[in-house]
């Protein structure tokens, strides 16, 4: 019966691991759509849930850290030859290993769900996950140290609350680079599928968490107040080293782009349909729909001949310039990693008449565009609610107007109707107000 074995069974280690796995997996599977896109999405989502997991590890450490005080074994243990540091080693290993492994289990539980659909495995995922595990080890060890220093009943719950606030406020603090060093959840808000975390940001978090972990160890094994004060040195050194190498430019800090994930993966045959590498598993499902959309648009002169997944990194990039030969598609991923809302692909391709979103400063006319698009689609306009997944409400007036315009087009000879629709498309491209172009 080894002492490590005893500590694994009888300390808070097993409980902390169980709570971490339960909370982490429950949080993941409450909304699998947030991370079903791929490995990086999973890594970022788990990192976001650090706001729950990190305080749990901190509080568990604090609970365990006051054990000697609670059990009043100090006098008995003081008569034994084994040093305090050696006495604490098994409990440090037990707590660290169990929360670290629990974190890896949470990531693994998500990995099982996406393993068959995720097409792209960026190596940064490994580093982000390992540093996430290190962050939890650091939280547990810091908790042990604080729990020993302040062995009160309220220490653990107070640290749990403080941990939530700390993770949250450091994640959103300014300047960004400080948050990148200190917050175990920094950079985890998802904006696009080809997002990543700069390897330097992962490295500085590792430095800071390493320092924090050492501080916890020193607080736990300190023999006197002088060592306890000296315990702040590792975390200060960790912060200093991290501050020296942390990137300060926004491109590396705020939702950085993984260029490999954003590369296009295309069909070999024409008409060409392309998706980003990170979403390349849905290419086969998307291709027939995209070609159907291209065929509808082909009724217009000079229509686009290729369909590409929308790759605009909103909000960190300005709107890209459009290639008139390419129509962009918003690719959505469902809870199981497949193509979500396939019914929306063709209408969305046709709604802009192949011009993309256009410049937001240009005058637009929703009813005119809708009537023109539905003329190409060959059916009566309907409300966007139910067609475009994100739409939840629109003015009934808009569609009534569109139907009226569409009926007007139907009564015209086909070449005249097409000429008017083409005029609307050309107005959009030229940034002119298309109002009245269908009913002149």
């Amino acid at each position, binding site marked *: *019966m*080894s*002492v490590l074995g*005893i500590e694994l*069974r*009888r300390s808070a280690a097993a409980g902390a691991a169980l709570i971490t796995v339960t909370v982490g997996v429950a949080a993941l599977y409450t909304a699998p759509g947030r991370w079903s896109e791929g490995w990086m999405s999973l890594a970022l989502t788990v990192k976001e849930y650090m706001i729950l997991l990190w305080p749990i590890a901190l509080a568990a450490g604090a609970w365990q850290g006051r*054990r000697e005080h609670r*059990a*009043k*074994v*100090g*006098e*008995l*243990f*003081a*008569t*034994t*030859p*084994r040093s305090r540091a050696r*006495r604490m080693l098994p409990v440090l290993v037990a707590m660290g290993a169990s929360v670290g492994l629990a974190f890896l289990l949470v990531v693994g539980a998500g990995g099982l769900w996406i393993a068959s659909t995720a097409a792209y495995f960026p190596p940064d995922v490994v580093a982000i996950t390992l540093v996430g595990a290190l962050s939890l080890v650091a939280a547990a060890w810091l908790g042990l140290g604080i729990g020993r220093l302040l062995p009160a009943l309220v220490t653990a719950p107070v640290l749990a609350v403080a941990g939530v606030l700390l993770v949250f406020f450091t994640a959103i603090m300014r300047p960004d680079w400080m948050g990148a060093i200190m917050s175990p959840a920094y950079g985890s808000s998802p904006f696009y599928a080809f997002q990543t975390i700069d390897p330097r940001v992962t490295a500085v978090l590792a430095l800071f968490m390493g320092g924090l972990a050492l501080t916890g160890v020193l607080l736990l094994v300190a023999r006197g107040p002088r060592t306890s004060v000296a315990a702040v040195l590792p975390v200060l050194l960790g912060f200093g080293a991290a501050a020296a190498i942390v990137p300060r430019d926004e491109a590396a800090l705020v939702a950085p782009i993984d260029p490999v994930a954003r590369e296009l993966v295309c069909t070999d045959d024409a008409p060409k349909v392309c998706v980003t590498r990170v979403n390349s598993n849905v290419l086969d499902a998307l291709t027939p729909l995209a070609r159907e959309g291209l065929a509808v648009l082909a009724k217009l002169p000079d229509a686009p001949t290729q369909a590409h997944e929308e790759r605009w990194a909103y909000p960190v990039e300005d709107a890209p310039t459009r290639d008139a030969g390419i129509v962009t598609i918003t690719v959505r991923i469902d809870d199981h990693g497949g193509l979500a809302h396939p019914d929306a692909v063709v209408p969305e391709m046709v709604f802009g008449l192949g011009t993309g979103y256009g410049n937001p400063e240009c005058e637009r006319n929703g009813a005119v565009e809708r009537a023109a698009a539905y003329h190409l689609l060959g059916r009566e306009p309907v409300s966007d609610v139910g067609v475009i997944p994100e739409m939840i409400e629109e003015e009934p007036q808009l569609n009534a107007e569109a139907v009226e315009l569409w009926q007007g087009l139907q009564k015209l000879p086909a070449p005249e109707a097409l000429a008017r629709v083409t005029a609307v498309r050309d107005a959009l491209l030229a940034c002119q107000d298309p109002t009245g172009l269908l009913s002149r």
Partner: protein
Amino acid sequence: MRAVSTAETATTIHPWAVHAEALKVRAGRHLAVDGLDLSLGTGVHGLLGRNGAGKTTLMRAIATVLKPAGGRLTLLGSSVDGRADLRQARRALGYLPQHFGYYPRFTVREFVSYMAWLKEMPKRDIPAATQRAIDRVGLSAKADAKLRTLSGGMLRRAGVAQAIVNDPQVLLLDEPTVGLDPEQRLDLRELLRDLGTDACVLVSTHLVEDVVAACTEVVLINEGQLVWQGTPAALAEQGDERHPGDSPAERGYSALLRSHLAEATR
């Protein structure tokens, strides 16, 4: 043939297992042990004295919990003061504090093993030594029960088990009979006699009967000083019918204390 460490070949012959000269120990700001001279060898020594006489403070000093404030204290030949390396002496020490702290989630076996590990016993010896210590205090049936499920008397015996797991040369038991029923007290006396054949056992108690039955020597202290040291038989001879008590030993105890107090106030 294996290598032999210097610790193994160091002499085990000390004139006394515990030796105090003009020892002073503070309990808080109060000098609870104040100029005590005491020499203890192999055997079971019963430490008697009124509440506040300094019994527990003396025990804690010998257990290396408290540093002496003055005088000299040697434990198995090594000096106990602020600077000395106490590891060697502590390996040979067993201690049951008056307030025995324990981890309630641990089983008896786990806690005794853990204490054996803290006493730096060789890893391979720990399981057998643990079992033997548990057997000797009569807790075999409860070896794998969690400590929080034990009654007061069982806990006290678990406390004795952790104290003896390393076959200590100096064993300090502060009121080991608290919470034991009469039968368990008889068993403990038996164990004490057994332990006292090759170790120095110091037992603090209020029960004169336990001392007479189990101890080879009686140590009586008052106000931090040694009042009397001798065999239980000699203790019984100190008193007569005029002194309070239900047995010769109790009357001897009363007589010694009275004459000491009379001397002190004179």
